[in-house]
């Protein structure tokens, strides 16, 4: 295979790399060329970006004032054990 042509495995790796890091100029070109020819990887990219959005919407778990009170008691108990 020509050096500039990526496999789908490599193309999807670059798609993921780009979400967290910068691609080099060569990598950008390689990915662009690959996507122009490969509709599966183009779909993959859209879906992957979409999933990132979904992941970023994650809900922070909730806790009650009672949980907090219980935690304080627990910590004080542990500290008392530690100090004795």
């Amino acid at each position, binding site marked *: 295979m020509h050096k500039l042509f990526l*496999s*789908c*495995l*490599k193309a*999807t*790796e670059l798609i*993921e*790399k780009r*979400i*967290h*890091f910068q691609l080099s100029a060569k990598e950008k070109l390689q990915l662009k060329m690959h996507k122009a020819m490969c509709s*599966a*990887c183009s*779909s*993959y990219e*859209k*879906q*992957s970006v*979409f*999933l990132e*959005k*979904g*992941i*970023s*919407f*994650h809900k*922070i*778990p*909730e*806790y009650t004032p009672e*949980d*907090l009170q219980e*935690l*304080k008691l*627990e*910590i*004080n108990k*542990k*500290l008392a054990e*530690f*100090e*004795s």
Partner: protein
Amino acid sequence: MRKVASGKINLSEWVSNYTEDLYSWAVHKVSDTELARDLVQDTFLAAAEKIEGFKGDSTPKTWLYSILNHKIIDHYRKKVKQPVKVENQVFSTFFDEGGDWKKERMPGNWNEDDEGHLLDDVEFQSVLKKCLDALPDKWNTCVKLKYLMNKNGDEICQELDISPTNFWQIVHRAKLQLRNCVEENWFKN
């Protein structure tokens, strides 16, 4: 047992003043109330142990936060170093030897135009969550780290002491699996 000669410092006062902030911070950073509890407890125990080192250069709150943040990073460091059994099977599941998609695993059509509404859909959210939870622990953590830590890839790698290549390869495997799971359980259903 060593007596904590804390001088004027009253740790239980710190507990009543700062536990809430520390706990809320930890819950946001690890997205797990049980784990956050443990981390905050450990933070106060560590504070008690090295209370002599607290010189009052910073506020107690800042000092406690720095201990807690170390504990959070430590937790993630351990997590990203966990070995994952299925690590090498993922690529052969999705790609043939030449690195092309296997026909049956090729990304299908998600009707991308409707995707905007999907993120508000409770049922879709629950499928996504199930698929995230089904990932090996380490992968699950790695795909969420960016949003939990609010940091970019380079910063994450620096803090967790892993190489960028290592990190995006973990994310790559995780996303292949996650994408497939969401497709199987939502789009094909």
